């Protein structure tokens, strides 16, 4: 290979010399073309694995998932997926009541599926989406905490780098290990209840952070020790799972803090020192400098953080399911895809694909909305 290339390069340079001597105008183009050919050839060769991988494992799968959601694929008894999609016309989704072909059947199903935990029927997808969005409370909390710690760490003190490392430790740890540790720490007689004296907080019983059926019926009245006669305060449904959700939020803030801090430190070190100094000479105090000079410079970092946090937050799955098992009170939206699309032999990947397509749409719209807000902000 190498010899070949070297020979090629020599041939090129010889050609160039010869061309200049004999026919300067016509033959000058040839070496350049050969160089360009080399560039194009090697450019493609170097990135062909990545192109193949991305197209195969992302784009083809995306198209396949989109098509699957209009068919009636099942785990057992169906052909392998690509053959199945090849004769898709024969397998379109149909209305299970009337038997008529209805390619949007799964979409109608996923939007209208209901559950009946209490007296009234509730939209299932709505419940799971509510949980997912509820966990996003952790995003602003994490952002503010990370900003606070990042400002502390950029102060000129010895040993600031050590703190960066310590705060990043939770980010590299496995979610499974973290969840099992937190589950024990938040158990009834566990560390947290002991530390805050919560063993007798609810009617003489311990705070049951992680049991949906623990000291039931738990209501807001009981939890807050109040006696208000509204439905919201008295109905157990409105309070069930709230403590478990709090644990999940605490856990995700704790786990994600280090990464955000490092991004903020990177952003803070990029803030223009000259502007800061000028503001100081003009008599601005630290607080004013932070809001008027540092924050505008940090805006891109904050925006990037929010966008990635929202995209990641919509895909929350492992934490709630490992902590509480799959249930409508704590699980995120992605567990619907798993539960309906992939769990066991009776699962219907077509339903899962329909759920997945809707998730992709939500994330796309949220991201576009954020970019729209960003562009509006800049004007």
């Amino acid at each position, binding site marked *: 290979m190498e010899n070949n290339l070297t020979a*090629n390069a020599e041939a090129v340079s010889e050609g160039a010399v010869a061309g200049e001597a004999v026919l300067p105008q016509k033959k000058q183009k040839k070496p350049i073309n050969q160089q360009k050919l080399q560039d194009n050839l090697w450019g493609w060769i170097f990135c062909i694995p990545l192109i193949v991988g991305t197209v195969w494992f992302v784009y083809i799968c995306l198209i396949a998932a989109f098509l699957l959601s209009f068919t009636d694929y099942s785990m057992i008894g169906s052909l392998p*997926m690509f053959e199945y999609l090849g004769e898709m016309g024969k397998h379109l989704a149909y209305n299970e009541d009337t038997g008529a072909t209805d390619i949007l059947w799964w979409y109608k199903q996923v939007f209208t599926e209901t559950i009946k935990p209490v007296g009234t029927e509730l939209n299932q997808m709505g419940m799971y989406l509510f949980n997912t969005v509820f966990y996003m409370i952790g995003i602003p909390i994490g952002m503010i905490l990370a900003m606070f710690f990042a400002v502390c760490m950029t102060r000129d003190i010895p040993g600031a780098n050590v703190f960066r490392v310590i705060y990043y430790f939770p980010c590299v740890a496995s979610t499974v290990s973290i969840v099992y540790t937190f589950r024990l720490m938040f158990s009834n007689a566990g560390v947290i209840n002991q530390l805050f004296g919560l063993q007798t907080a609810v009617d003489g019983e311990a705070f049951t952070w992680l049991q949906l059926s623990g000291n039931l019926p738990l209501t807001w009245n009981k939890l807050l020790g109040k006696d208000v006669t509204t439905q919201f305060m008295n109905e157990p449904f409105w309070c069930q799972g709230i403590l478990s959700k709090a644990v999940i939020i605490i856990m995700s803030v704790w786990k994600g803090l280090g990464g955000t801090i490092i991004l903020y430190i990177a952003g803070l070190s990029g803030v223009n020192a000259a502007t800061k100094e000028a503001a100081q000479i003009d008599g601005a105090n630290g607080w004013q400098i932070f809001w008027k000079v540092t924050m505008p410079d940090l805006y891109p970092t904050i925006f990037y953080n929010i966008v990635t946090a929202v995209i990641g937050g919509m895909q929350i799955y492992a934490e709630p399911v490992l902590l509480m098992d799959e249930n409508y009170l704590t699980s995120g939206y992605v567990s619907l895809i798993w539960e309906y699309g*992939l769990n066991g032999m009776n699962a219907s990947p077509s339903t899962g694909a329909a759920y997945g397509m809707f998730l992709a749409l939500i994330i796309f719209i949220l991201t576009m909305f954020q970019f729209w807000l960003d562009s509006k902000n800049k004007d």
Partner: protein
Amino acid sequence: MSNEVMNNDAPEQEKQYSSARYAWGAFLAFFGISSATHRGSKKRKKLIGDILVYIILLFGSFLMIYPFWWMLAASFANTSNLGTSTDILNRLVWWPSLSTADPDYNGAHGFFTNYYDLIVGGNNRGFDLAVPGLTFWRVLLNNLLYSIVPVVVGVITSASAAFSFAKIEWIGRNVVFYFLLAAIMVPGPSIMTAQFCMYDALNWRDNGLVLIIPGLFGSIMTAFFIRQFLYGMPTSIIEAAKIDGAGYFRIFCGFILPLAMPAIMAQGLLSFMGSWNNYMGSFIMIDRDQKSINLPHALALLDESQSSIPGGYAVVIAGSVICVLPVMILFACFQKLIISSLMLTGSKE
């Protein structure tokens, strides 16, 4: 600043202040804050601020470290005294001596009973209870295989693509780049049903190939970050090598790989940690009764099988420590490289 200017005039005016006001001013001045009566020193102010910042950061570090500390202590728990006051679950652990104070550590292996049971699989506390025939060493080997092979090969393919995007001029380069970059907009869970069916048809699922082969093709995010790094490298090196007659393959192996080694190492380490902790991949794709599951997945199954056994938590926590420890050590060794790469590329993971 403005306060100081005022203070310069203050002695001339000789204003009378109440003693309370005067004491308050003295109190503030001790912390370096200037007031109408006293002038604070800047040095003192900085010192007090530094101490405050240290206290805050140390408190935060405690919060960050304590769960790991507790995890380590709980992994040594003695499960023969469940429910008593020496049961680790009912106790705040500040120092491991508290747990060594238990006189009745049963078994021949002392503190390491849980680890021994997990690794050797004794007392119905090993992985074989979760998956018949599964041993600890098999799980560890799986996890190493899933996190070393795809990461080493994948980071090199990513680096080659990054080299192509950053340093070679070819037609359609930007179009291809943005086409690939757009793939990160596709959320993983959305396409996981189709991926599952595809891997099932290819028969890659239960033999674990699903966690190896897709990784060999590299990842666009890794390529993107290495490309950012390569942009900062002078092109003249490549031009010089070309003039000397080196081909692109030679340039890549001889110049790009060594020169971009910090970025490649950092990205490789980060993706190693990601693969090591990849619970979702194994959980979604590999059936729960297979021996090819990875460590986090096996831990989750172990937890399920131990959940009805009193004291079963201890062996699960021992497994959690084994799962966390290698990446923690790796991160501690390469923290400078990883953190500087994170700050350069602005990625979170």
